[in-house]
């Protein structure tokens, strides 16, 4: 376990460094690093500190959040198909963000934007739990997710088209597929408080999720407070997904792919999978963000494109595996 965490940590560190080194402004890696750490008076320091650093930081924060949220939801629902993007939590959060931006509420006070996204994500999570029932059977879970995603997506489209701003109508792609381009340290600071709260809440779930492996009755009899667990899960997932979506749009499949890949390496234990997925998610989003900058440096290729290319085939594979249960 320690070895796995160390390896994943090293991977994240390497990808973080690579992310700092990639961009339209040409420079050697050494120069990038030195401009970042010391203000050498050239515009390159500005590039490093205000453009590349926030981008890399957001990739780590959002990737860790999505991996963590996916592992937590799967552990609670005992279903490997549960993840915030697939079951509509990310789209709900995006709807909250879009509404608060278009109505001007986002400008009302400092954290208005991520809190709006959080509130909308809460509604999404609660709806899913309501629709899917306590033992989250795959069929009802996926159907609930389709319904909520469709509804949220349609409402986002409606709000953007009603906007007085002529650019807004074209931005549904950003909201539904996600992008880290042109973000600043302001976005990092905006997302961090709510996200950190979510990390703390989700971090407390390890023991409970381990016990839930044996079912709700057994877990309850082992002293796990299931309603407190559920509350921490709901609020925690809403926090991390809300804050991340508010600044970068809805990024899907991370919470599906990462726990699935890492589960065998942690011996199936949900508590260990939480930490591993956080690191794995950070690595995945960093890698995807590097890929979009290498594949199409001039255009803003959305992160969701890379995620879908990785995630959709895996999703299909998972469905085939659980086909028996689905019928």
């Amino acid at each position: 376990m320690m070895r796995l965490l160390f390896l994943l940590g090293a991977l994240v560190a390497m990808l973080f460094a690579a992310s700092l080194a990639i961009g339209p402004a040409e420079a050697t890696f050494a120069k990038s690093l030195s401009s970042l750490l010391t203000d050498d008076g050239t515009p390159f320091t500005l590039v490093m500190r205000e453009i590349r650093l926030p981008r890399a930081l957001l990739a780590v924060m959002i990737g860790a959040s999505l991996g963590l949220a996916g592992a937590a939801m799967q552990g609670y629902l005992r279903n490997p198909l549960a993840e915030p993007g697939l079951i509509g939590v990310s789209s709900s959060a995006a709807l909250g963000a879009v509404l608060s931006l278009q109505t001007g509420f986002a400008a009302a006070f400092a954290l208005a934007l991520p809190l709006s996204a959080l509130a909308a994500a809460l509604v999404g999570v609660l709806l899913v739990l309501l629709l899917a029932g306590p033992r989250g059977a795959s069929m009802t879970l996926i159907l609930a997710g389709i319904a909520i995603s469709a509804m949220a997506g349609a409402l986002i489209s409606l709000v953007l088209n009603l906007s007085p701003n002529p650019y807004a109508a074209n931005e549904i792609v950003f909201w539904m597929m996600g992008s880290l381009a042109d973000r600043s340290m302001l976005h990092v600071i905006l997302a961090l408080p709510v996200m950190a709260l979510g990390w703390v809440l989700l971090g407390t779930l390890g023991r409970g999720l381990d016990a839930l492996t044996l079912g709700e009755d057994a877990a309850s009899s082992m002293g796990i407070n299931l309603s407190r667990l559920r509350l921490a899960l709901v609020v925690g997932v809403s926090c991390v997904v809300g804050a991340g979506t508010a600044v970068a749009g809805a990024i899907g499949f991370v919470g599906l792919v990462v726990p699935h890949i890492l589960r065998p390496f942690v011996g199936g234990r949900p508590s260990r999978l939480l930490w591993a997925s956080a690191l794995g998610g950070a690595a995945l989003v960093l890698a995807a963000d590097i890929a979009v900058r290498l594949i199409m440096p001039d255009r803003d290729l959305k992160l969701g494109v890379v995620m879908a290319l990785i995630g959709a085939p895996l999703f299909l594979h998972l469905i085939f595996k659980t086909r028996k249960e689905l019928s």
Partner: protein
Amino acid sequence: MSTLLSLDGLTALRGECPVVDNVSVSIGAGECVGLIGPNGAGKTTLMRAALGLLPAKGASSLTALSPSERARAVAWLPQARDIAWPMTVETVVALGRIPHLPRGTKLRTEDQAAVDAALAEMDLTDFADRLANQLSGGEQARVLIARALAQQTPLLMVDEPIAGLDPAHQIGTMESFAALAAEGKSVIVSLHDLGLAARHCTRILMLSQGRLIADGSPAEVLTPERLNTVFGIRVFYENTAQGPIFQPTEVTR
């Protein structure tokens, strides 16, 4: 002699209908209690109500405890044999130590010792590194019993643990429970095999339609009249050199 479980007028309702009807019983240490009754008699509901897993009227000494105290006082093995994730047998059994771990999930020496003992008791030491959800149903059942054993509680409540096990392991499991009782712990096990109950249990509780209609040693409880009224069967019951032989022979209604 300490009382490990005390129920007083426990009643669990489903709508208007009492599934468990005014049950009062007291269980001390060193008892191997067989909970028997026909299908739908309320055996599972009684145990779950006693544990506080569903709302009930009346008193249960277990629900008076805090959840963490309760987890160290009683281990509950439900009928549904869920193992949600691909874990090794040893990992599953180690889950039983969760109530004893202060924070986090790392096992200490005493925890590892408890796990090893449980594995040995259920004849699973060779299976320790195999994936639990790739085992047969009967083997999985033994893994889950081992988990309950690893919890090392004074009281063990087990819901139909031997269904689907082969005869050797059926007898072996009941012998483990009897051995626990001999050590001073108590086990409440619900089961349909009246013969095994007669041979291994020190005390029998017979439920019918939610009511506790008999409470005593196997010989006292398993009378032909009761077996006819409650179960609708005729039995061959005799004490032999190999111990009590109990075999249902025919249906009476």
